[in-house]
């Protein structure tokens, strides 16, 4: 059987880690949604240089490992004179990385709104930005919510990267507990349970939304 006394003895550490994991995930979600929307609009906007910039961002970030992005913020930025603490560097890395994936999700959502609507709105006197804001985005949001949910699940899992740069998250504390107790198996199983507490409800929620969306079509 698992040794549950570990979870009792180290409850504070588990909780501190859990709190940071939740915090990092939420902050990165907010940040990557903002950047993701901007990049998605860049990719679609009728301005060539913006298209290029958006495409370059998405393709570059999507094709390099997350840990590299996080390391750049943590080990690389100080060389440029910007010192970020572990938690901030980790959360920023997560944000920049996830934004590329969210941008793609949102772009796909926007493109799924029939083109005729854009033309109709423009010809009725709305500007490009107004059309985006009032006509296209509200419709796109419905379609993109399930895939965004998936990105959020990935984000929660990916937040474990903070553990590598002493980012005080669940993975970091799990690691500390295991090296203090010399128990690895049980400690990591408990860490896994804490992650599942976050990700399983999210997965079920996304599944539910996906099925509902499929039926409404």
């Amino acid at each position, binding site marked *: *059987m*698992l*040794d549950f006394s570990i979870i009792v003895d180290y409850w504070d550490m588990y909780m501190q880690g859990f709190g940071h994991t939740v915090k990092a995930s939420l902050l990165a979600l907010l940040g990557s949604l903002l950047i993701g929307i901007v990049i998605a609009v860049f990719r679609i906007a009728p301005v060539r240089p913006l298209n290029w910039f958006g495409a370059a961002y998405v393709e570059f970030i999507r094709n390099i490992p997350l840990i590299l992005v996080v390391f750049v913020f*943590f*080990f690389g930025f*100080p*060389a440029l004179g910007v*010192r970020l*603490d*572990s938690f901030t560097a980790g959360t920023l890395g997560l944000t920049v990385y996830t934004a590329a994936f969210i941008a793609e999700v949102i772009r796909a959502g926007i493109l799924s709104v029939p083109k005729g609507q854009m033309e109709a709105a423009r010809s009725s006197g709305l500007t490009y930005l107004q059309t985006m804001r009032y006509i296209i985005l509200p419709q796109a949001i419905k379609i993109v919510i399930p895939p965004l949910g998936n990105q959020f699940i990935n984000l929660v899992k990916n937040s474990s990267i903070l553990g*590598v*740069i*002493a980012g005080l998250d669940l993975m*970091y504390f799990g*690691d*500390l507990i295991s*090296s*203090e107790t*010399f128990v*690895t*198996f*049980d400690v990591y*199983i408990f860490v*896994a349970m804490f992650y*599942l507490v976050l990700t399983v409800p999210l997965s079920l929620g996304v599944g539910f939304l996906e099925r509902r969306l499929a039926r409404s079509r």
Partner: protein
Amino acid sequence: MKWKNVWKKVIGIGLTAMLSATMLVGCSGGTETGGEDKTKETSTTEGNTLEKIKERGKLVVGVKYDLNLFGLKDPQTGKVEGFDIDIAKGLAKKILGDENKIELKEVTSKTRIPMLNNGEIDAIIATMTITEERKKEVDFSDVYFKAGQSLLVKKDSNINGLKDIKKGVTVLTAKGSTSAQNIREKAPEATVLEFENYAEAFTALKAGQGDALTTDNAILFGMAKQDPNYRVVDETFTEEPYGIAVRKGDQEFLQVINEYLKELKESGEYDKIYEKWMGQKPKQ
């Protein structure tokens, strides 16, 4: 890596992957069958280590690869060198008559005990402090190096000892080391961040992610030698006797190691190795 061997093992791994996948399923499903008999597994030493070494004709030692002076892999030559390595080679010579009949494997503070207990290595010679806690897991030889915990800081830093590690000061170290526990006890106000290994911790210090790096002074001397922008403070605040670790109950092997250490000191060879790496004679 040789492809032939890789493929052979790949098939094995494929099978174990399936097995452990189902095992993981079992655990998360709430049945937890896996954790039951682990104490039995680790405590069984498979046969006599000394005989196995002789049979194999090779001593397998876990050493560090990221520690200047003790065990450092030179990316240019691929060679691992240091104080611990010289001690290990002498041991190979004692047992097998040839200091080159040795295989070095990289360990970290975190991996060394698991690697020893699962039989990947015969002994640990990796700046390992003898502690009561660890004695429950492994057996230690006599002390082969006396070290003490200290601090590495920037040359112009105003940190000169433990008294300067106050609130708001960030101290870096490696996971699974006694240094982390010590600094937490002695400077509870400070922020302590632990990294995967000392190299990462030192990179983080250089990147300005902390004000001091703490661990055994001998290790810190190595870092200071590597980068003269850093210095080791004079004060040491713990005693850290290093020992060679073997699997629990491995008495015969341990006896040979202790004999070897005694001979090494009596012959004066020890002082030579010490001076070669630390730049000074050992303090008596």
